[in-house]
């Protein structure tokens, strides 16, 4: 199944990232909330942190409801047709020459891939949308 495959690749890539990052220290906001397992995504506490980061800090540019701002919308509608790996890469490395910064120091590759998967299928918790 292609979803499974993608997650496995992400998990392998994570090992690579960790090795590269090791000399510079671990990503700044990893709180040790739990071991990331490939099948289930980050541990629940870490998932909440990532969703909060997405809403609040990504939201500064993409809108708290992800409907766009200085950065483009990150809604399922906007993202589902775009390749997941390149979205993950955009999150980790940013886009030089644009306002999109790299988030490598705030999350691992598998966490970025998890965010992208959730964004693309629209299963990021809806905010209080009154």
């Amino acid at each position: 199944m292609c979803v499974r495959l993608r997650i496995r690749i992400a998990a392998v890539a994570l090992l690579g990232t960790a090795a590269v990052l090791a000399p510079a220290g671990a990503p700044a906001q990893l709180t040790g909330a739990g071991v990331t397992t490939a099948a289930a995504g980050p541990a629940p506490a870490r998932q909440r942190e990532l969703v909060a980061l997405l809403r609040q800090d990504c939201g500064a540019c993409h809108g708290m409801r992800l409907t766009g701002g200085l950065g483009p919308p990150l809604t399922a509608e906007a993202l589902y047709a775009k390749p997941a790996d390149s979205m993950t890469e955009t999150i980790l490395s940013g886009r030089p020459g644009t306002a999109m910064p790299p988030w490598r120091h705030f999350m691992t590759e598998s966490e970025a891939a998890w965010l992208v998967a959730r964004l693309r299928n629209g299963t990021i918790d809806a905010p209080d949308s009154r």
Partner: protein
Amino acid sequence: MLAGCAAPLPLRGTGDLGVVIERAIGRLQVVDTSAHATLGTVDGLGDLSHASVVYSRDGRYAYVFGRDGGLTKVDLLERRIDRRTLQAGNSIGGAISQDGRVVAAQNYAPGGVKLFDARTLALLADIPSAVGPDGQRSKVVGLADAPEGRFVASLFDAGEIWLIDARNPRMPRITRFRGIGRQPYDGLVTPDGRYYVAGLFGEDGVALVDLWHPERGATRILDGYGKGEARLPVYKMPHLRGWAIADGYAFLPAVGHHEVLIVDTRTWREVGRVAVAGQPVFVIARPDARQVWVNFALPDNGKVQVIDTETRRVTATLAPGRAVLHLEFTPRGEEVWISVRDDNRVVVYDTATLARVATLAANAPSGIFFTSRATRIGF
């Protein structure tokens, strides 16, 4: 309170009132800066991420610009929505004209500026922005009011500054300044109303228009201020709006550097820099200009630093809590209110002693806006 059977509201002025945005729940608090108290809340304001506020000149009404394009006129005294309109798909803020009659909204999508009757919120003019390199109408940033019934704004994608003469608001006249630099991200009008300053994100530099002499065009200042230093990632765009002009000097956030740049506003030359704890977001002078307060982007957003404008040194580093989003001085600056999003509170400091004098509970507070803005040029 039920409007029908309520006793008449006690008479009071609004000079010591303001609002705190609770962005995640689309609500605002009406606060009293003398009492350090929340007087009440107003909700139903839509998506308030990146919300900003301007005031009617009598200080009674707050015009709240929401991300979802909502423009809401809130009555601070009765604590209710007076009018509300959904004026765009994606908006970022606005301004009010010198005479208080026209409210202008700056929009991302569809990109442009719209002018409204401040009393009724009826649309007076729709000014589409120029198209940027991606073929879309440019996002509009840095909208501010200027003397003689004008507004000034910047076009992020197209790299232009527009001077909008709105004396006849149904027939605004536009003067375009092109090629001012790549990706202006915000702008300010100096407190005396003379200059418009637009920060550039796409290059190291700042664009300047002398509003006394628009015929001289836009000039470039601080060219290449980051030369020779690696540019750090910017996790949040700095904001220029705020009273960042102190004692004849402009204190401006460097983009991609942990520095505040100091520029002499007579010559517009850099005269110094202050190393600070992170990427500055808001750089705001206390109203008497003796101190400049700075907050920061992630990962340094738990700190606030105080710069002494005489020695140009950081004299204090405060830790108000997790995710400091905004700060606002009381009208004469004896206190500063700081919103701390992730601790769900607003913290009030005495600016002379730096002691905490009050804490107010608020749901993920972001912007804080006091009615003293009503009387300031460029707010």
